[in-house]
C-alpha cells in the first residue's frame, strides 16, 4: 500500500503547532483530497477530541467517505498532513480500527462470519502464521458482543444486510484499536442491528476509545453522538453536538450550495480534460 504521502516537510510534528493538540487521537492539517485531479475535499483542519463518538455528517458527495479514506492512507491527499496521537499513520496503525462500507466487498465469498472476524486479528499474527485457537476465541467474543455468536459458522452470503454489517463491526472490535473509523455502519440496517451498533459504540466510549462514524441519518445524530463534523467539501462546522448541530449550521451544510468550491472543482476537472481553460 502507499503510505499517506504529504508534500509538506515532515520536520515539524503537528502537535507543536499551536492549533493542534498532542492528546488528540487524530489531527488533520490543511488536507486537500482530489479524485482524478478533481478536488473533493478542500483544506480540512480538524482535531478529534479523545474518547468521543464523532459523527461525520453531510449531503451526498460531500466527501465523508473520502475524508476517512484519506486519513487511512487509502487515497493520497493532494496536500496536507494527518497525524494520530502525534505520529504518522504507519506508526499508529496498530491502534486504528476500520469498518469499510458494507457494499465495498463481494459477500458471496467462501468464508464464514467467524473467518471474517478473524481477519481483524491477522495483523497480530504476521506472515504465514495461521489463526491460533486463542485468536479464534477472541474473534468469537467480538461476534458475541454484536449478538452474532450463534451465526458464527454461517457463510457470509447467508446473512442479512444488518447481520453482515455486524460482522464487519465485530471484525473492527477484533482489531482491538483505540481509534475507529466507520463508514456508514447504520446504512440500510434493521432495528436490531442499529441497537447492537449503538450499544457497541457506547461500550467503546466507556472504555476510552474514540470513534469517527460517517452517518447519514440526521434524526439520530443528537441521540447517538457526542461530537459532529458537518462536511460539504470542506468542514462547515465541527465540535460538540450541542453547540454545532444547529439549524443554522445544517442549513449551511445542506441548504446553501457551495457554488464557489463546486465551481472551482469543476473548473479544475475541465482544465485537466483540456477544455475551457481559464474562462
Amino acid at each position, binding site marked *: 500500500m502507499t503510505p499517506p504521502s504529504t508534500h509538506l516537510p515532515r520536520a515539524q510534528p503537528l502537535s507543536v503547532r499551536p492549533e493542534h493538540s498532542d492528546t488528540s487521537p487524530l489531527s488533520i492539517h490543511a488536507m486537500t483530497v482530489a479524485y482524478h485531479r478533481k478536488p473533493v475535499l478542500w483544506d480540512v483542519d480538524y482535531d478529534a477530541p479523545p474518547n468521543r463518538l464523532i459523527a461525520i455528517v453531510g449531503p451526498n458527495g460531500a466527501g465523508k467517505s473520502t475524508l476517512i479514506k484519506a486519513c487511512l492512507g487509502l487515497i493520497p491527499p493532494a496536500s496536507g498532513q494527518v497525524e494520530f496521537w502525534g505520529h504518522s499513520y504507519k506508526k499508529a*496503525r496498530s491502534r486504528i480500527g476500520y469498518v*469499510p462500507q458494507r457494499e465495498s466487498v463481494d459477500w458471496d465469498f*467462501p468464508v464464514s462470519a467467524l473467518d471474517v472476524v478473524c481477519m481483524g486479528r491477522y495483523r497480530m499474527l504476521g506472515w504465514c502464521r495461521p489463526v491460533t485457537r486463542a485468536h479464534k476465541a477472541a474473534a468469537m467474543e467480538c461476534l458475541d458482543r454484536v449478538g452474532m455468536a450463534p451465526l458464527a459458522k454461517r457463510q457470509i452470503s447467508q446473512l442479512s444486510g444488518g447481520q453482515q454489517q455486524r460482522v464487519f463491526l465485530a471484525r473492527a472490535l477484533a482489531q482491538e484499536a483505540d481509534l475507529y473509523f466507520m463508514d456508514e455502519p447504520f446504512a440500510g440496517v434493521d432495528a436490531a442491528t442499529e441497537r447492537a451498533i449503538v450499544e457497541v459504540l457506547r461500550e467503546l466510549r466507556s472504555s476510552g476509545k474514540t470513534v469517527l462514524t460517517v452517518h447519514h441519518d440526521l434524526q439520530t445524530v443528537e441521540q447517538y453522538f457526542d461530537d459532529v463534523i458537518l462536511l460539504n467539501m470542506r468542514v462547515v462546522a465541527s465540535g460538540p453536538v450541542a453547540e454545532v448541530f444547529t439549524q443554522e449550521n445544517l442549513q449551511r451544510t445542506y441548504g446553501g450550495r457551495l457554488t464557489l468550491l463546486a465551481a472551482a472543482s469543476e473548473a479544475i476537472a475541465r482544465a485537466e480534460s483540456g477544455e475551457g481553460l481559464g474562462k
Partner: protein
Amino acid sequence: MAEAFEVLTLQGGYNTTVVVLGTAMLGLAAGVVGVFALLRKRSLMADALSHAALPGVAGAFLAASALDMTGRTLPVLLIGATVTGVLGVLSIQWLVRATRLREDAAIGIVLSVFFGAGIVLLSYIQKNAPEGAAGLSHFIYGQTAAMSAADAKLMAVLATLSVVAAGLLLKEFTLVCFNDTFAAVDGWPVSLIDLLMMALVVVVTVAGLQAVGLIMVVAMLIIPPVAARFWTDRAAVLIALSGAIGALSGYLGASASAVLPDAPAGSVIVLTAGTIFAISSLAAPKRGVIASTYRHLNLRLRIAGDHVLEKAFAHKAQDGGQLGAPELAAVARHQGWPAWFAVVIRWSLRGRGLARANKGGGVEVLASGLARGATVRRNHRLWEQYLVSYADIAPSHVDWSVDQVEHVLSEPLITELESLLRARGIAVPGAAVDGASA
C-alpha cells in the same frame, strides 16, 4: 477397455505414464492457483496473460536465431513468454489507471493485440525459418503427447510450489481477495501480495503453454475453481477441491487421449474439466441448478398448499374442510401453473399429512391442515395491517406482497410485527381467527 485400464493404472508404457502424471500435476497446480485468480476476480487477466505470452515465444525464437543459438531451446522461449505475458498484464493495469477504460475493455484490447502480434511473428517465422515454426505453433494448441520426463518433473515442482504457497499464504491471499482496502489499512502490502498471486498464475501459465497450449491453459486455471465453488463455502476446502478437480481432469483427459486415436490431449483435458464443471453446476447439493430449482419449486408448492389450506379454513363452517377439484385447479392457475398441476398440489398436501383425497378429485383438509390455514390467514392479516397502517400503502395495492410474505414470515418476524402494530394502537388479529367471519 483393457488398454484404458492400463493407462489409468499408469501401466500404459513409459511415455504415456509420464504424460498422464505430468498433466495431472499441471492440473493440480493450475487448480490451486486459479482459485485466487477467481476470488480476486482476475480470471480474465489469466486469459490475457496467456495470449500475451505468444509474441514472447516467437520473439525469443527470433532473437535466439539471430544470436545464432539453437532456435528452439525451451528455457529461452519460456523467458520470452514470461516477459510479454507480464508486459500484457502491466499494460492492462496501466490502461485502467491512466485512461477511463474499464478493465474488461482493457483486457479485450491487450489480449487481442498481443495475440495478433504473436501470429504476425509466427507467420514471419514460418516464411523464413519453417523448421522452427512447426515447434512454435505447439504453444497455441499444445503438444501434450510430447511431454518429456523433465517436463513432468517440472510440473511436479510447480504443483508442490503452488500447494505450499497456498498453504502458507492462505490467510494473506484470502484477506486481499475478500477486502483489499481493509488489508491495506491494516498494513498488509496489498501490491506485493497481488504480485505473488499473479506470479503464481504466470508461472503456471508459462509452464502449461507447451503442454496444453495457450488457449487451453486458461481453461485449466478457470474451470476447476468455478466447478469446486459449487461444492463448498470454505476457502481452504475450495483450494483443495479445485486442485483435485484440476488433477483429475489432467489425469483422465491425458489418459483418454492416449487411448483414443486422434484426440488431442489439451482439448480432451479441457473437455474433461468442462464435464466436471457441468456436473457440478447441475448436481451440487446447495448451489447446483437442480437443488435450487427443487427448492424453488418446493416453496411454490408450499405456497400453493397454503392457499388451499387457507381456503379450506375459511369455508370450514360450510363444508368442513372439503375442497373440490375446481378449487384446487383455481389455486394452481393462481400460481401461474396449468390446471392439471392441481394433482401435484394434492399429492404434496397428502404427503405432508395435511389433507387426504376425497371423492370429487379434491381434498379433505385434516385438523393439522386447518391449523396451518389459520396461521396463514392470520399472517396474511398481520402483514396487510402492517402495510396499510404502518408502511402507508393503499389497501388495494397490498395483494401481491401479502400473497408472497404470508407464507414466509418467521416466528421472530411475526412477534416484531405484532409489537409494532400494538405500539401503534392497531388491533392485532387474534390467534384464533374465526374462519366463518371472513
